[in-house]
């Protein structure tokens, strides 16, 4: 294991994050506050409770998930796309590192950044709503797994992307809609019958549901199914990355 290489990649990626620390932290704080004002105060005042939880508190897990998923994806995809764009990828390909080490460095850093933002949003939420966390360890586990799996997905997107437009394509066209339709601001049980069935095909439903369970002890789907879903998703991303490095797809001729 080339541990120096892993740490070098990780540090250099984290440095990019801290170089722009103000943007990195202020923007999620502002957008979270806006969500609380719009959804929590304006709309929430007309909705009493969802599954026994005040609406303002109910949307917190979904809000965190929304930011964490988009941040993890965009951080990881940019992290590996940028060396491709500047051409510095040659160094990565000629260095004594294997795929696991490269992934650990880039995905580890992207997941850490997403974690940071998730925690910041959680702290912000405490200023707006009364919040208690029923299963703190499960909450952290879900947060870590989500950061990790979506960073892996972002890494794949970054390797696949041939230009900056493609880099934005999947997050914009796939991830954001899936998160919005995944019950981030409502319970899936509030949907009409057909849509409930359709929603079950959305993998994000399982993640948000599991995360919400960690907060309030109530969930749309069984917590075990949520765990299996996120484990499967992480496994699938890892397998895809392993295949990419084995075949050199889009990176090594």
């Amino acid at each position, binding site marked *: 294991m080339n541990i120096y*290489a892993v740490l*070098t990649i990780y540090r250099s990626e984290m440095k990019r994050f801290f170089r722009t620390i103000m943007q990195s932290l202020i923007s999620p704080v502002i957008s979270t506050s806006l969500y609380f004002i719009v959804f929590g105060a304006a709309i929430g005042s007309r909705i009493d409770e969802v599954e026994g939880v005040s609406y303002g508190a109910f949307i917190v897990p979904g809000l965190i998930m929304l930011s964490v998923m988009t941040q993890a994806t965009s951080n990881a995809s940019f992290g590996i796309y*940028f060396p491709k764009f500047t051409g510095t990828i*040659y*160094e990565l390909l000629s*260095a004594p590192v294997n795929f696991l080490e490269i992934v650990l460095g880039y995905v580890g850093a992207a997941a850490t950044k997403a974690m940071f933002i998730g925690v910041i949003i959680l702290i912000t939420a405490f200023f707006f709503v009364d919040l208690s966390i029923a299963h703190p360890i499960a909450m952290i586990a879900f947060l870590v797994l989500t950061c990790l799996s979506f960073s892996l997905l972002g890494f794949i997107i970054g390797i696949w992307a041939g230009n900056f437009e493609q880099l934005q394509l999947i997050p914009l066209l796939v991830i954001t809609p899936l998160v919005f339709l995944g019950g981030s601001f409502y319970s899936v049980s509030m949907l009409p019958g057909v849509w409930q069935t359709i929603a079950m095909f959305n993998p994000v439903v399982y993640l948000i549901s599991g995360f919400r369970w960690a907060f309030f002890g109530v969930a749309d789907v069984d917590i075990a199914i949520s765990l299996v879903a996120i484990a499967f998703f992480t496994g699938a991303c890892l397998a895809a990355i392993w295949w990419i490095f084995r075949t050199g797809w889009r990176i090594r*001729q």
Partner: protein
Amino acid sequence: MPSIVSVDNLRKAYPGGFEALKGVNLDIEEGEILALLGPNGAGKTTLISTICGITVPTSGKITVGGFDTVSEYRATRDLIGLVPQEINLEPFETVFNTVRFSRGLFGKPRNDAYIHKILDQLSLGDKKDSKIMALSGGMKRRVLIAKALSHEPRVLFLDEPTAGVDVELRKDMWDVVADLKAAGVTIILTTHYIEEAEAIADRVGVINGGQILLVQDKSEMMAQMGQKQLRISLSEPVSSIPDMLRKYDLEMAEDGSNLTYTYDTKGERTGITTLLNDLAAAGLIMTDLQTKQSSLEDIFVGLVKETA
């Protein structure tokens, strides 16, 4: 001398069917400077990329320091530093940080003193905190060299280090290469400037169409180049070379209208004076004299044309 890099029947075909390398064999000796000469598209960069691990070979075997570049890639890449042809650098990073990044990536513990030393050696000492984007093209090229040297490699590949570089900087670059050689680093550089190969290489390899056409000691090549030819045009064609001129080994044109004398410019005596005296003594009347020197360029162009 033992070879540090050994390339055996290396082939590389791209998915489109283009064969960039067609069975390359090459042995690079430890401590030497080998210049690979070849026109654009000859396969120079593909050859280097394959040795460094950026390109996967279709078939054949490469060893570096006795290790296989595919199955023992960690050991081989540890020994190799690569300076790419394109200036690929992260524009927002500082010089020092980007060099330190390279060292870490190659699995070496942090050693700032060593990085300072390299930067000073490459006259980048006072630019260490500058952002890459603020540097001139020549400076950026030096940063690439510093990055390649950051993990103390034993073999350094320089892919067209002086392409698009002004004359003064080119001379500087040659000095850098000479210093590295003195430090015991084996250097392989690709170029299409013949004078560059002449100036710094120990051996010269000519590559074209994905094949190595020739690898020769530069001094042997220089010996060939040191030869000059004197063409003597005669007013009256001769049917054979007179006996008294036999010792000069003259070549006679088919129609006998001129004679060609080959001599070594580096020899103590070229023999021109006595030849001209003897020509006069033999009763031959000269109408014109021409001298012609064969250069590395002639050899190179000749070889490349043959395979085109």
